[in-house]
């Protein structure tokens, strides 16, 4: 088990290096002249050169990356090129917002997605199954952000239920916080619920048709017991689906934060990309991937606990 964990952590570190290096070189390749983007069109070549010197852009790209990585290992993600504030500080400010939305959305997806998927999968062809199939097509056809729009329109503005936009910190007001994250989370979760439900439905149906389920039935076990066996064997899939969903939700959060004016990581990413603020983009990538690696290691531990076959290896 320890060896297994060490291997996972090693793979996670490799992923972290690969992702940040990828972002770094992609950003340098794509944003060929960061000083122009930072200073605007009115800057003189002398001003640009001075800034380039100040940012260390005169050095070879590889040296720049190694320098960054050396500091990052010690938790120093450098200064933003835009504000000259520490990157880590700004990211930490934004994390609670994004994490609130994404976690809440994931909880909703886990709860309702699992419930609907299992109900549909246990009774294929039943009313529940058909409704879920229909809703899947409809929701798949409407991009997540479209739903956010409708939600904003109706619940926030017409019905005066929730504040239309913005984020309230739980430190200021707990109820205000809940009210402010409800709509972004729900609009983010709707697509996730359907995807979780669809995949779980298929998995439950697949397991139900397996040989050992028929053999268990042949020993006279009642339906309720058979269901337990089916669900137990569909559980690893459910956990994997939810963990993978986490990555998807982080991407979706970029759009949702823009719509609801939430000052989260997504918004920071978007504005940093537009301004060519490479240290900030790197910091966001590193923080996100680090977090995801943690999630996946946790996933592996849980799967090892749930699935006897994995436990052995």
């Amino acid at each position: 088990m320890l060896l297994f964990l060490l291997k996972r952590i090693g793979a996670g570190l490799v992923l972290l290096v690969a992702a940040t290096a990828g972002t770094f070189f992609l950003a340098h390749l794509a944003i060929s002249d960061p000083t122009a983007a930072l200073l605007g069109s009115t800057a003189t070549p002398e001003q640009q050169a001075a800034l380039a010197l100040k940012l260390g852009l005169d050095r070879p790209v590889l040296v720049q990356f190694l320098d960054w990585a050396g500091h990052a290992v010690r938790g120093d993600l450098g200064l933003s090129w835009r504000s000259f504030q520490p990157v880590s500080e700004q990211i930490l400010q934004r994390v609670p917002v994004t994490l609130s939305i994404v976690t809440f959305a994931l909880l909703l997806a886990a709860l309702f997605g699992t419930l609907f998927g299992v109900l549909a999968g246990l009774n294929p062809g039943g009313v529940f199954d058909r409704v879920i199939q229909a809703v899947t097509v409809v929701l798949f056809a409407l991009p997540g952000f479209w739903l956010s729009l409708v939600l904003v329109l109706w619940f926030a503005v017409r019905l005066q239920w929730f504040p239309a936009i913005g984020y309230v910190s739980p430190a200021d007001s707990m109820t205000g916080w809940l009210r402010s994250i409800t709509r972004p989370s729900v609009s983010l979760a709707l697509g996730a619920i359907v995807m979780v439900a669809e995949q779980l439905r298929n998995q439950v149906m697949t397991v139900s048709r397996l040989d050992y389920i028929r053999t268990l039935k042949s020993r006279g076990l009642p339906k309720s017991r058979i269901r337990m066996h089916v669900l137990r064997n569909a559980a690893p899939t459910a956990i994997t689906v939810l963990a993978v969903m986490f990555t998807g939700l982080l991407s979706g959060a970029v759009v949702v934060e823009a719509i609801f004016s939430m000052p989260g990581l997504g918004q920071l990413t978007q504005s940093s990309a537009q301004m060519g603020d490479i240290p900030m983009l790197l910091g966001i990538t590193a923080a996100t991937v680090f977090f995801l690696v943690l999630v996946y290691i946790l996933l592996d531990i849980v799967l090892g606990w749930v699935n006897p076959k994995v436990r052995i290896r």
Partner: protein
Amino acid sequence: MTSAAPLPVYRRPKPVWRRLVARPVGLAALLVLATLALVAVLAPYLSPKDPNFLDLMNAGAPPDAEHLLGSDSAGRDILSRLIWGSRTTLSGVVITVVTALLAGVPTGMAAGYFGGRTDAFLSWISDVMQAVPAMIILLVVAAGSRSHFVVLMAAVGIIMAPGYFRVARAAARSVSREDYITAAQVAGLGHGVILRRHVAPGILAAVTIQTALAAGIAMGIQAGLQFLGIGQSNVPSWGAMMADGFRFMLTNPWLLFWPSLALGVAIAALALLGSTLADVMRSRSPRPADAAEAVADGATAPATPAPEMDAGAETALRVDNLRVRYRNGGTVTEVVHGISFSVRPGEVLGIVGESGSGKSQTVYSLLDLLPANGASTADGIYLRGKPIHALPEKERARLLGSAFGYVPQEPMSNLDPSYRIGHQLCEPLMVVHGLGRGEARARVRDVLAKVGIRDIDRVMRSYPHEISGGMAQRVLIAGAILGQPSVLLADEPTTALDVTVQAEVLQLLRDLRAETGMALVLITHNFGVVADLCDRVIVMRGGHVIERGPVAEIFAHARHPYTRALIEASADIDTSRRELDRMARRTESEAVQG
């Protein structure tokens, strides 16, 4: 309802596109997409206005004769922008999908075909790509390329490549295990040729379905990017129109409505096309919706209970005119055409035939455990003279485990991988037979000892993957006889085992029969097994019984050429030797008993 469906005649399946068009949903989806493509191609001729012509005087104007759908917040003609937007959407999707195909399919094929390190390496890259949040990468690319349309859409394609990789890998993996691929390798064909000529056609179906879905997802991502304001402002796009509509949705909801409608219809068409394609291309797999009808069909056949006397009190099981039907898509196929047989207590009846002859279906219908799209009818099924064919589903289910025991064919796939063996065996005793935990464990230990397992404690603590195939088959036999059934149905109980273990398992069945006096129905394709164990035999072919009689008689004077062929096929040196062994053992045991 076509309950009296004639016997199926094999017909060459129609080409996929014709079956697709035959379905209303498929036809509708194709028409929508064709229209969209046509509009996109003909945009310069169809568009009534210049989509970028700003007419600030006309900003947000309602529809009129000049602007059929009105104008947007900058006075641009909405209809024209929708038409040109379809061009943007489609060309973007094409770039994305082609990129994803090129990046995902060849790599996926290679990973699935070669396996091993190639697979591990490529799969790792695919996993890494999926682990990085796509939006961050896209935003960086957008910023760097100054939102260059082609570059950005290609980047979306790269991000979507793992989806293709997964599908192509899975399909190539299963194709690679087919016999004809092995044959091609043995024949000395190069990997490149095999991949191109043999593997590629095999994964076509999966990749086609994936493409329909991927195109839909690509549209969504593209619109999302445009909605965020990424993209050149002079390129009309649905996502940008939605962003504009969003700002003015309270005063003029139509600005939001039209692009949303266009996008929604396009993605829905792709999603429906994908699911219909999947249905059509995999039409052999059962569709849940058909199950209810198939079962209803079964109910329409009259079930005439025969007089009790006919059933004969001395038979353990008697079956009259059993038929099994399957419904696939729109066609009903009868796989067992009215077979009858009976077996006495302590007797071993062999049901022999090749795969596809309906042997297993007969067993499942006796257990009432046919798959959801199957149904069976019989004039009569009698268990110790008691009619059970007309019993309600629930009472029929009560016979399982107590009256009927079932030994499956494949030992490893018939044990629940998530539970310890001890739990799997104790559960029915506690739940069905009402034993306490301690009693159940004691009984399981007894039965495991009876089936010849020595280290009982270890086996009970083990998960199925921790024991051998022969051991697993013994566990399954133990599971079947736990409730002391009067009829044991064994479906090819030795096929998956190696020869020495086969002999042990057959011996075990023989001993159990002698000890418990239960009737044994043994399904097999191997006359060697029949000679070893059975008293009487029926030979099945294509769902009919073609020959029946005592084993010795059949071996001596088989009338049907098919039976003779089966006997010859089984009569290798191995089985003859086992036959001799058996006779030796039988004389021995008779001597001991006498």
